């Protein structure tokens, strides 16, 4: 898969490969230690630079997603 910037392509491919194996063999089997974090870091830095250059402003999402504050059906009473 392509990266938004050709400059980040190599870093992305290394990270994606690491992540896919980690996700399948570790995370889904109960491990929580993210061994791909160092690869993500250098890839992330590259993408952030590209976003700045291209003037892309991200959406930071719903802060409460997946937390206890996420909208839930009201409790009884």
């Amino acid at each position: 898969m392509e990266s938004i910037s050709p400059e980040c392509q190599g870093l992305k491919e290394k990270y994606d490969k690491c992540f896919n194996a980690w996700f399948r063999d570790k995370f889904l089997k109960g491990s929580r230690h993210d061994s791909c974090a160092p690869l993500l870091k250098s890839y992330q830095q590259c993408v952030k630079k590209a976003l700045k250059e291209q003037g892309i402003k991200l959406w930071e999402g719903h802060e409460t997603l997946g937390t206890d504050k996420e909208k839930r059906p009201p409790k009884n009473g």
Partner: protein
Amino acid sequence: MKYWTSEHTFNEPWETVVQAVTRKYPNPINSSVVAVDVIDRRVDNRGTLRSHRLLTTLWSVPETLMKLVGMSNQAHVSEHSVMDPRKRTLTMNSRNLTLNNKLNVDEKITYHPDPSDPKKTVLRHEAMVTVSGFPMMTGYLEGMVTSTIASKAQQGLQGMDYVIQQIKEEAINLNQMKHKKTTL
């Protein structure tokens, strides 16, 4: 504002389906997604995997609308996801970053095991479309965008099936390799 929702059941367990979600692109059926980048990803202290991805797509809005608002054909989407492997849930929220002063597409997709058969997975897709700045045409434009989303969602399911098949074949090959190693 126009609301659209749809549900689909995959005949695969949640673990296979979420692998396909993370590896969905590229696939030959959903070729309008041209780039995917991970902006942020971490395992939080609750053991859930939180990701923020940026998707770059060739805009699927009908040509009439594109001409009307004078936009380029590339659009960016921010997608936030939370995956809980213990509860076996995946929730993804996404929003368009391009042209968002005139058109807002907020989507929420969840994947969870089928309550009546834990070996199957239910996908629930919700979309909220809001067009502003075209008072006489709001309903018409929102309807147009919504039907585009519906047809893209259908293609998305076909893309998922394609990737699920790939993952299943890989698993068979991996097993065969392991078997060979142990019998050597």
